[in-house]
């Protein structure tokens, strides 16, 4: 008689699914077990991967389980792999995205009200990168588009769901490069005084 090695099967499935990942439903359907049992197996495999001898681990991202390399090996992987998306989003796009993430659904006018500047460009960048999408129309005369975040947004920031967004903090730690900015202003005063 053979004992079914669930963890082994799950590992094979996760490997094959790659960055498409597997939902809990898929795991339980393929293994023909209950969701509860599936959770158990997933969690036990997850724990095993945390061992230092393993280079990959099992994470939940954008609502699916998937295998991914551990952060501590990124230096080696960067030597091996091209990272096309290394540029990162602009400050304007990040601000716009943050407002949408926490206030969705939200219109462009409302975003501009908060930022105090026109936001057309960052918004269209975000839409074309599918980090944000039109999710409906606002009530009222203009029937302006309402924007919300996408599944790709979660993936882009390594989040599993919107609940994992960092909490909004009231008081601001200015993360400026203070000195540089002061230098800049020092110079300014010299010119205008």
């Amino acid at each position, binding site marked *: 008689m053979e004992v079914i090695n669930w963890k082994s099967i799950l590992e094979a499935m996760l490997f094959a699914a*790659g960055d498409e990942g597997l939902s809990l439903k898929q795991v339980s359907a393929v293994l023909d077990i209950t969701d509860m049992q599936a959770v158990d197996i997933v969690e036990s495999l997850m724990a095993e991967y945390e061992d230092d001898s393993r280079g990959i681990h099992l994470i939940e991202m954008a609502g699916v389980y998937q295998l991914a390399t551990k*952060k501590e090996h990124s230096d080696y992987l960067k030597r091996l792999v091209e990272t096309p998306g290394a540029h990162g989003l602009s*400050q304007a796009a990040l601000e716009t995205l943050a407002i949408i993430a926490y206030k969705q659904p939200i219109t462009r006018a409302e975003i501009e009200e908060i930022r105090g*500047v026109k936001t057309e460009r960052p918004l269209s960048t975000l839409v074309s990168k599918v980090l944000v999408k039109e999710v409906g129309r606002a009530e009222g005369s203009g029937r302006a588009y309402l924007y919300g975040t996408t599944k790709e947004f979660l993936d882009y920031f390594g989040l599993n769901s919107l609940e994992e967004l960092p909490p909004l903090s009231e008081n601001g730690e200015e993360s400026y490069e203070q000195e540089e900015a002061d230098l800049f202003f020092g110079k300014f005063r010299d010119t205008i005084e």
Partner: protein
Amino acid sequence: MYKIKIDAFEGPMDLLLHLINRLEIDIYDIPMAEITEQYVGYIHAMKELELDVASEYLVMAATLLAIKSKMLLPKHEEESHEDEGDGIGYEEDPRDELVEKLLEYRKFKNAANEFKVLEEERNLVFTKPPSDLSEFSQPGEVVRMDLNISLYDMLGAFQKLLRRQKLQKPLFTKVARQEMSIEKRMDEIVADLRVFGGRKTFYELFPIPDKEHIVVTFLAVLELMKLNEIFVDQEGNFSEIFVAAKDGVEAVGSY
């Protein structure tokens, strides 16, 4: 001799927050005269430098001036009664709306910084594309139904593909370093020494901290010595070794 790199401000709110921070102003009690002066000075400076000042900056300047002048107006009599204590009254402070907006904006600006960190961390994680499972699928049945996809799903998948890190094959074919021949390095060294016109320390011949480059350079130097194309000179045991090209050795003179 310093260079300055400035992050652009993301608009008047961002600039105001910066000023508040730099002047160490209490955001709940903004000295309007001071901040307005600073802000307007900044706008003037931009104009003097012939930069386009976006209209939003000008609107904010007007707002600041309006608040400032409102605060200069004599207070109503009832207010001065209420205010007797520590100056906190229930009447509306002309700054309220601005402060509220600044606080709101700052929340999201902070969140944007957190997003930046998340973005960087995510870039440290590598995934793999789904395997090709064709060997497991039955060919055949034409089914044209049961799809529940939108254009976004399609575009989203494509963006994910674009972001997916690709194996850097060129690195390994390119870096086969066939070009790094000893002959070539010999030529480089001699040319370099001739241009320099004097002696160089041995270590200066190894500018690139790459194993292969070092080995090739070392072999090239040995070869050049053998061919009598360079002079090698050491003042004493364990002291600095100097290298010079054979022609144009005036500066060396010892041989």
